[in-house]
Structures are given as C-alpha cells and as structure tokens.
C-alpha cells in the first residue's frame, strides 16, 4: 500500500470532503428513498462524543480483556510463590526438579500464568469474554469467508 499524498492546496481536502457530505442526503433520498430523523447527525455527534468520554472515564478497555494485566497478576502470584518456597535448600532430587522446571518452554509458562491468573477472575466474566470475543470473531470470519467472498473463485475463473 502506498503512503498518503500531501495535498498542495491546504483547503482542498477539507472542502472536497465537506461539499461531498452535503450532497449525500439528497443522493440517498432521491435514488433510494432513504431518510434520517430530523437533526439526527447533530444528536448522533453528541452521542458519539459522550460515549467516548464515558469510555475514557472508565479507563477504556475493561481489565478482564487485557491479557497483560492477567500476566502481571500471574507474575505477582509467581513471585509470591517463589519467595515462600525459597528457604528450602536444594537436595539432589530437588536439583533434578529444578532442571526440569528450567526446561519448561516459555509458551508453557505463559499458558500456566494465564491459568493462574484466570483463578482470580469471576467465571461469569470469563464466559462473557469468550462469548464476546472468541465466538464473535469466529462468526464474523465464517460470514466473510463463506458468504461474502464465496464468488471470488468464480471471478478468477471467468477473467
């Protein structure tokens, strides 16, 4: 993809967008019979700004959805666990166990950290996360692949 171009006339970009916006209501009403409630766009603008303001107040993304917070919580839990068990001196068999622990891959550690962190989260919140993100994303992917782009192959064969 190419980088955006710099416009020489500084007003050109704004005026082009502004004049096009003004035509839109007429085009859609005339050709397609589509209408909007009176003063909809000014009301909607305020609604959008209020929603964004409210989101910012609630610190944006809910903590449950931020896996970095999960990992941080897991890290704290791990440090606490290590500090509790540290006083034990390593015996021969302990040394073998330690070697095994070191050989655990980074991926396994992250997975385990996530599992530990998930213990601190309410089950209903986890269900909500799964419903909202994992299920939604798979449905959208299916929709786009199966229904929206299903005739791309036909296009390729025809031309």
């Amino acid at each position, binding site marked *: *993809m190419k*980088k*955006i171009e*710099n*416009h020489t006339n*500084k*007003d*050109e*970009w*704004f005026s082009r*967008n*502004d004049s*096009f*916006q003004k035509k*839109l*209501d007429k*085009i*859609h*009403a005339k*050709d*397609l*019979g*589509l*209408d*909007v*409630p009176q003063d*909809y*766009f000014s009301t*909607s*603008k305020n*609604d*959008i*700004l209020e*929603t*964004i303001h409210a*989101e910012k107040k609630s610190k*944006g*993304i809910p903590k449950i959805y931020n896996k970095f917070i999960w990992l941080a919580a897991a890290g704290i839990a791990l440090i606490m666990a290590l500090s509790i068990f540290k006083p034990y001196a390593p015996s021969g068999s302990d040394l073998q166990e330690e070697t095994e622990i070191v050989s655990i891959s980074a991926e396994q550690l992250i997975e385990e950290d996530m599992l530990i962190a998930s213990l601190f989260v309410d089950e209903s919140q986890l269900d909500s996360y799964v419903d909202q993100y994992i299920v*939604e994303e798979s*449905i*959208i992917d*299916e*929709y*786009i692949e*199966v*229904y*929206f*782009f299903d*005739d*791309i192959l036909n*296009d*390729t064969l*025809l*031309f």
Partner: protein
Amino acid sequence: MTSESDFIKRLLDQKQREKAFKTLLDLYQKRLYWHIRKIVITHENADDVLQNTFLRIYKSLANFKQESSLNTWMYRIAFHESIRFLALNKKKTFDSLHDINNHYLNTLVTDPFFDGDEIQLKLHNILATLPEKDRQIFQMKYYDDLQFNEIADVLNINVNTIKTSYYRAAKIIKKNIQEVELFNETGV
C-alpha cells in the same frame, strides 16, 4: 483549515486529539453513516453501527500506520463493523445468507425512515437480487464515490476483481432498469 497529513498529525497527537476528532466527525459522520446504512439497511441499525464505528476509530487512532489514506482506513472500519453486525444478526435470526438477502426488502419497507416511491423500491428490488459482494462494491463506487483502488483497500480484494464485480453489477442494474422502463411504457 489544513491538509490531510497535517490533520492526521493532530489526530495522532494526544493533546490535539479531542478537537481534531470533533472535526473528523464533522467531515466523515454522514459519509460513514450512508455507507453503513446501505449495508445494514435500517436507520436504527445504522445508528448502532455508526456509534461502534467511531468508537473503534477513536480507540484505534494510536495504531493508524498511514499505510492507506485516512478515508480508506475509516471506511474499512465501518465496513468491518457493519459485517460484524450482519454476522451477529445472522447468528440470531437467519439460517443462511439467502435468508438475509430475502430479508433485505422486508427490512427496508418496515423501516420508518424508508420513504421510497415505486421506482425507488424497484431499484432496491434489483439491488437485492445481486450477490452481496457485487452489491456492496457497486454501492461503494456509485453512491459512496470511492475509487476502485480505495474499494480494493477497504475490502482487501484485488482491484481487477473489484472492477469485474462493479461492471457486472452495473450491467445487471442497467438491464433491469431498461426492462422496468419498457414494462412501464408498454404495460407488458
């Protein structure tokens, strides 16, 4: 007043973002609303999706890499939010896309903000017969005034495929409109 690149700098600057975002709303609210409306059909649905779209745009500004124009980037988000809405709607209400396409006109005529006459309804009838991809591409080119390369960027499809879809849709629409006109003239 400023150029697009200056405006993007203001959007990306946290201190200037609030003010720049209000300008962004003034410039793009109608464009994105009408783009969304033609996908989700009713005003009520378009209103929901528009809100989600601008919220997503605001949250994603920090990640805007300027690999495409601001215009294309926002259309891509609006398109994705509309498809997300349709996909979830499909999950709740429909068994297949065929149901959704059949539902197109029923949804349209029940919308209190559809005020079309007989001819406009016939155009919708023709649009409803098109494959969804062709319909979206036709509408993006004809009504949203996007260039072929911009549509290709929004949909992440090869530009030649976009052109093929557009001309195929335009041909079908033209043929059907001529038939409607002939029917109106002759009554046959």
